[in-house]
């Protein structure tokens, strides 16, 4: 029956959306459930599907659209969410270019966008993931402590790769570390031998592999096979179970900066993040299997937590589905303080739409094919 209703709704979109909704919060999401960023988008989609259909006394409806990683589609989806579904807030998208593209729609229509990729924020654009600067500086601190003098960068040939490299340079130089190689590889390259050879040629003390998910394991495997003995570092995007499965013995002893979500079970109970993280893990893994929840699920969860935290404030000023509500929601978000989520604790302001601090960053190591908290 629900399906039939859904079908009818989909077929009668223009008519249905024209009618006024009664205190129903509409959360629109556009994620990359297919395409090159599918592993990110699917996590986020699965999480949103788990979210409760009510916040307090307010009913919530979620509209999830797939954009396949194409910025043009992202914009179409964002416009559909705003113009057709009268979304009060947009979650998305999963990749940097898509999120940037949506930003324009968000600012023009004055609809809050909570991006799930680390981008520069603006008027109506918020971004939850840890910034490149935050995570990379943590890595560089560890490198410096370990006495690394020469490092190599092996990253994705995309926005993320560019951003992380820029951050790496920014922090490495003052720390006395020379970055002597900048190699790139594509997500589904079948061989990274050439890049690895290039990296090993400069004989670095440390190699920073900047990639997300399982692709990050390939260079590590190649480095180990070619006899590299230095320290390999990863970034938080690589930290998930499939990465461990594919990396196997090749990622033993590597180190990564991660969000606290990745080692949720090891966090002290006093850490407010732990409660949220465990709730997400239990909900997600009971449906999708053990070890399936990753950092991207946490971003989607936290977006929801933030909206939930500021909803009463916004409801006091206007009703959902109206332009005034969207402005109120935006203002309320900017005023949020110490909102705990599964991945970080957020304190926003008019000038800070990212809202996180060092509590969102931990260092993890890999031993016996498992992550553990370093410190």
């Amino acid at each position: 029956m629900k399906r039939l209703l859904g079908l009818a709704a989909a077929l009668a979109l223009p008519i249905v959306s024209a009618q006024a909704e009664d205190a129903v919060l509409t959360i629109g999401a556009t994620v990359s459930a297919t395409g090159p960023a599918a592993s990110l988008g699917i996590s986020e989609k699965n999480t949103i599907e788990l979210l409760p259909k009510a916040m307090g006394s307010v009913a919530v409806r979620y509209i999830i659209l797939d954009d396949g990683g194409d910025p043009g589609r992202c914009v179409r989806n964002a416009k559909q969410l705003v113009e057709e579904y009268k979304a009060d807030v947009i979650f998305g998208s999963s990749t940097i270019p898509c999120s940037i593209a949506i930003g324009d729609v968000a600012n023009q229509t004055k609809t809050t966008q909570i991006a799930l990729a680390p981008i520069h924020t603006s008027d109506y654009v918020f971004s939850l993931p840890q910034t490149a600067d935050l995570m990379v500086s943590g890595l560089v601190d560890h490198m410096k402590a370990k006495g690394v003098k020469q490092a190599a960068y092996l990253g994705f040939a995309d926005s993320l790769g560019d951003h992380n490299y820029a951050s790496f340079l920014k922090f490495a130089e003052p720390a006395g570390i020379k970055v002597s190689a900048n190699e790139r590889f594509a997500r589904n390259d079948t061989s990274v031998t050439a890049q690895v050879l290039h990296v090993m040629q400069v004989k670095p003390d440390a190699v920073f592999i900047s990639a997300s998910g399982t692709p990050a394991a390939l260079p590590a495997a190649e480095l180990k096979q070619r006899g590299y003995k230095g320290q390999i570092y990863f970034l938080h995007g690589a930290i998930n179970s499939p990465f461990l499965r594919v990396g196997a013995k090749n990622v033993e002893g590597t180190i990564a900066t991660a969000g606290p979500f990745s080692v949720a079970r090891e966090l002290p109970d006093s850490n407010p993040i732990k409660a949220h993280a465990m709730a997400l893990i239990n909900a997600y893994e009971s449906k999708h299997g053990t070890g399936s929840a990753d950092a991207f699920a946490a971003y989607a969860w936290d977006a929801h937590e933030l909206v939930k935290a500021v909803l009463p404030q916004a409801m006091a000023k206007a009703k959902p589905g109206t332009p005034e509500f969207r402005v109120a929601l935006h203002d309320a978000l900017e005023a949020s303080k110490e909102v705990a989520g599964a991945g970080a604790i957020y304190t926003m302001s008019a000038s800070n739409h990212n809202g996180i601090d060092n509590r969102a960053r931990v260092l993890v190591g890999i031993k016996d094919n498992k992550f553990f908290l370093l410190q």
Partner: protein
Amino acid sequence: MDSQIALILIEDGIASGAIYALLALTMVLVFATTRILLVSQGEFVTFAALSFASFQLGVTPQIVWLLGALAVIVSVWDSVDALREGLGRRIPSILAFNLLLPAAVIALSLWAAPLKPPVLVQAALSVAIVTVLGPLVYRVAFQPVASSSVRTLFVIAIALHFVLQGFGLLFFGAEGFRADPLLDIDISLGPVLIKGQAILSLATLAVLTAGLYAFFEFTLLGKALRATAINRVGARIVGIRTPLAGKMAFALSAFVGGVSGILAIGSTTIYYDSGFLIGLKAVLGAICGAMLSYPIAIAGSIGVGVLEALAAFWASAFTEAVVFSALVPVLLWLSLYAAPTEEGHEL
């Protein structure tokens, strides 16, 4: 770049090139027989590779559901067609090939997966799954429109690629898989370390090329296929049924793709969408052979692999650009010196 690095890169390039060459061979075969530029061949590679990974984890590869669905659709369709033409006696053989054979493969997979049989059995099952899938895909997607223009067939092939890739994402998920190399030895040849998997790839290329050659030269079925490739209408006139040729070509293509997949997943991570780029590079190799010549297709594919490895070393961000741009002078040369194709044989 010193000579040692150059040797390593060339070895790496040849290993990838061997896989491209395998696919280029069947791509030429399929094109010559059916005029289809099968860009979806890459999906056979990923399906076999990911099925293999699935078996390794003790899980039945979900792709068997697609196989089952297609088997039922084709069986019903062909049977209805046979009845309509009054050829009811053909139904047993129709069902045998299109229903019983896939069913046997599915049943075997369901039974064997949790038992975690030896690696070679897992590999054989994975290849069997895609090999049986190939002709079914041809029957559903291409056979009804086998006489269309090359352009229409190409668009269907691309649409099919999206469909199959979509099924790949649905059944195998977005994360990559990797398997232990089938031949986990490394041979030292002077300063160069040759990976066992690379040798296996080249050996497979040699064996399959020889096998295909023997098949085309010495068996009746192979000669029939060759005849169709040379002149489709003439082959029909002498009694070679075009659907048979098409299905055979697809079965071979799927088989070779499957074997390539098993080889590939031992040396790299395979994702649900890895097949497309591998298939595209195979197209480059096949084009070098003017979609006609098998030896040049092989040479071209290995060349693509080596060029890729070298380009990745010099300018990794521009690897694809270099590989594809290097193709342009090759194409120019081919245009000027190779025999012109018959009209209607192009996009």
